[in-house]
């Protein structure tokens, strides 16, 4: 029984991270209608940036987050200008299909670059508080995971505020809903696309920090995390930002509980099963709006 509770809590906490990765992916897809399966590679990049900031500058990983955000934001700007800018010229259906193929290529390119510059070694960040945990009746709540969940929630709330309360945020929402109408309202949608994509990359980077702290970073981890994010996005439903963290936690919970009975090796199959189930039974997701 205690094992179940422990697994459940671990699952919920990890799920917060899933939600954070999904946040960036959903933003890019919602605004640009571009499916960037290389999102996980941006997470990986964020992890490496954090690692080097910690190793070389000696910065505390949580404090390095703003810098990591800026770094991956910049990479996002670059990727948009060099690549995705051309994809948004197509109509929506072609856009989605082409962005899927192209970002698939980007996955391999970025992985190869990572191997070249960072080597294939696994990196992880160990800090003084890496093993610290709150303990209730022998249930461990690792500090890092809890902090990770808080960061995820904070960023999610922050993004929602940006979208709801700022003029530019309204422009982003308008562009997501109807890009032609948005440009007829005088909105420069190229700029909206650029910023939205860059923010999505920045969010991926910060998620990478948490991954470097809580797990490890190596060139090949990207797709695994992208997959988690995709599942969470489908679970939450398109068009829902608020639901992403919750959906992430639910996925984490399901994985955690399943691992009690099936063993950790089959974690991915559980996620896959959840994914297929939701798509079959309730395609609009748990919180999504019907198109």
């Amino acid at each position, binding site marked *: 029984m205690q094992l179940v509770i422990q697994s459940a809590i671990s699952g919920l906490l990890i799920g917060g991270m899933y939600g954070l990765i999904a946040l960036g992916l959903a933003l890019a897809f919602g605004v640009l209608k571009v*499916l960037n*399966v290389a999102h996980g590679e941006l997470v990986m990049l964020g992890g490496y940036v954090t690692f080097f900031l910690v190793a070389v500058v000696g910065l505390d990983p949580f404090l390095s987050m703003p810098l990591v955000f800026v770094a991956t934001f910049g990479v996002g700007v670059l990727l948009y200008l060099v*690549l995705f800018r*051309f*994809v948004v010229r197509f109509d929506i*259906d072609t856009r*989605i*299909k*082409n962005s*899927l*193929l*192209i970002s*698939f*290529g*980007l*996955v*391999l*390119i970025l*992985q*190869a*670059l990572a*191997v*070249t510059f960072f080597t294939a070694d696994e990196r992880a960040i160990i800090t003084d508080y890496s093993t610290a945990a709150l303990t209730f009746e022998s249930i461990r709540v690792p500090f890092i995971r809890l902090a990770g969940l808080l960061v995820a929630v904070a960023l999610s709330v922050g993004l929602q505020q940006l979208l709801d309360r700022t003029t530019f945020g309204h422009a982003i929402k308008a562009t997501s809903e109807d890009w032609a109408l948005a440009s007829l309202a005088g909105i420069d949608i190229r700029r909206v696309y650029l910023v939205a994509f860059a923010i999505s990359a920045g969010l991926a980077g910060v998620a990478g920090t948490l991954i470097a702290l809580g797990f490890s970073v190596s060139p*090949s981890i990207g*797709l*695994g995390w992208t*997959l988690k994010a*995709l*599942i969470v996005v*489908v679970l939450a439903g398109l068009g829902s930002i608020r639901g992403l963290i919750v959906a992430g936690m639910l996925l984490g919970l399901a994985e955690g509980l399943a691992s009690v009975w099936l063993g*950790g*090796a*089959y974690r*991915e*199959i559980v*996620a*896959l099963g959840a*994914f*297929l189930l939701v*798509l*079959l039974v309730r395609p609009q997701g748990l919180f999504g709006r019907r198109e």
Partner: protein
Amino acid sequence: MRRNVSVAAWFVLLAVCIVLPFSSEDSQVLTIAIQTFILTALASSWNIIGGFAGQISLGHAAFFGMGTIITRELWLSGAPLPLSLAAAIVATALFALIIGVPMLRFRGIYFSIGTLALAVAISLTIGNLFPGITSMPVEALRAYTFTDPYFLALGAAVTTVAVAMLLRRSVVGLGMMAVRDDEAAAGAVGVDVLAHKLAAFAISAALAALAGGAFAFFSVSYYPSYPFTAVWSFETILVTFVGGIGTIVGPIAGSAFFVIGRDTIAANFEGFQVIGFGVLFIVVVLLVPGGMVEGAQRIGAWVVKQGQGRKRDVEG
């Protein structure tokens, strides 16, 4: 006349491939050839679901990997190779049929994401379950020659291309292409859309497993999860697109171009090969969706136009 020329060309190509291991002792040449054959088999098999049926699967590596692991495990534990191979093909085809039923209900990008999810999930799970390297035992290593794996790989490539050719001319293949071009219209004229998609999916999976068997027989040692990784899915799609998706020649030309390019010219640019090919892939998707075949056609048309122009000048 044209038909006979192209049939003759295929036979010449086949003859060259058959003779090669007897004329060249160079292991590098044979390795490149074997890798080309395996990739050709993979690409041609993917072309059936992706090119003929128009369903972009991003998880082809799952079937390739299954072919490798079932063949390898059975063969290394003593079963004769043909039996191991057959078991791998049948099991993979069955798996594709089972998983295809829910998967193929998803249209377009959801199918692509679904297959990607499937492949990544399986790849990670295999990595969890089989973390150690699989190596050929010492006796097998001592007896190892390139000849047998060469002909198995060649056989896989020939079989796959032949199946693709047959399908293309068959009623079933026509149905698949109808589904690709306009699913709604195809359904309206009585084509069983799901059945055709499933058939394409299962056939391509079986052939991918065959390619996997060839890989398992050829490779001395590797991590069991390696054939399941996305690199294989990507290279398959890459060479098919670059060569010309939906054509017979495309996957072959693309594979040859890729393997030879990678291992000869690009070998000097370690690590940047992938980047180069990745960029090429992106360029093809955005600008020349028909790949080398379309490129060749365009060049051909341009040449013809130049010839006509000159003719007019002369006659003028």
